């Protein structure tokens, strides 16, 4: 088994979910694709993106 399979199976075991090999192959494909998109967030400059409260019901208040 690959490192991904070992890690994924251990994670799912903790959640009480059984997965088969075919399923894991599809999961890995989705995971790798999602991770490549999410890693864009690792590259943001936190100075340029301050933590601010969000009220989704309204336009953001002027700063």
């Amino acid at each position: 088994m690959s490192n991904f399979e070992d890690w994924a199976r251990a994670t799912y075991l903790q959640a009480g979910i059984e997965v088969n090999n075919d399923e894991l192959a599809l999961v890995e494909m989705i995971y790798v694709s999602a991770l490549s998109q999410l890693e864009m967030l690792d590259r943001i400059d936190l100075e340029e993106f301050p933590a601010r409260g969000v009220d989704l019901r309204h336009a953001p208040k002027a700063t």
Partner: protein
Amino acid sequence: MTHPQDLTLRQQSEAIRRGDLSAKELLEATLERLRDRDPAINSTPVVFDELSQVQISQAPAGPLYGVPITVKDMYALPWRAARNGTTLNLIPAGASGPYRNLRDAGVIVVGIANQHELGIGSTGIYSAYGPVHNPWNPLRCAGGSSGGSAAGVAARLVAGSLASDSGGSTRIPASFCGVVGLKLTYGSVPYDGYFGAATTFSAPGLVARDGGDARMLTAAMLQRPLPQQSGSGLRVGLVRQPFWNDVDHETADACTKALTLAGWKVSEVKIDNLELAGAAFLARLIAEAGIPSPEVFATLSEPTRALLLAGMLAPARFVPRADRVRAAVRYSLAAALETVDFLAWPATPSTAPTLDDPWVTLPSGRVLVDVPNVRQNSFANLTGAPAISIPVGLSDSQMPIGLQLLGPWGSEARLLDAAEHIERASDRAFVNLVAPLAR
């Protein structure tokens, strides 16, 4: 004689008010049409024959008295738990907030609108009730997750439906089925008894045949009047990359033509940090989707299981960064909306793909349709803003094309003004089209 479900929702309401049509006659005609047409579409797998009669006897004399609608499987009803496209009762029976608002206007909930299971999909293919078929071509998908809402309205089974939208789930099927789909501003109605309460993306959506019908439903849902104003002279902003550049040519051409017909002042607009919006949406969506119980997991289709299983592995470190990006792009959107009245781009990157091969070919390549569908729609969910999909054309393959307009928070009335203006400018050429399975 015109079948009552060939009338608009406005006409149905007016006919009842004038005494030309009774609520009971309208209901019976609706039930008959559901029996006749829906087996080929599967938009409304659960129909409340007897309970609908009871509702008529209890309905208040509101603006929508006696008008039958369907309700997506995401909302608890007093007599039925919300199942979210699964076989399980996930939210106990009760009067959910969005249902209460429509009930108080006098609607009759005639059935449950089919949906993609757990709302995790933009095709409507995977559902405990089976796939929803598109009334324009039953081999094509109706979109999702609110596919049953859009297909039922397009097939003229009902004139309106309560849908939901967490990443385009109202606008995508509306675009695929050639009807109007409006996603409300986040948090604008009570969320109790609604699956949307579990996320920061979801908002109820309304599906109707045209802007006027959508206005009636929206006013009932928001419980405030939405007076009609002229939609002419508005300023519209185009965000080219990626929303116009990576869509098929027929779709872009039809949307461009509609904007030209509208005569609006069109300008190019830049949204700062837009390139990060998709990642921010994904990070938060994964975190908020959570982990269903093993009992729920066991009932799900393979693709839905795989999506959830992949999400379980995503590192949590992305979430606080996503929140910073979310806050920033909301400021970017607000700044853009100071220069224009709304933004516009195609609601979906193409027309509806087939049920057995839900992939599309775009300038960027061949891709599973869910990916660009969510890209075209999730910005409204990330920011909380309202957005609408309006039918603006038919492709060479005779499938509908939808234009999306995204406006400031709380601007539902203006979005509907714009929708009705486009309808007038096009002589109602597209909202009056009748799907083959509705003829």
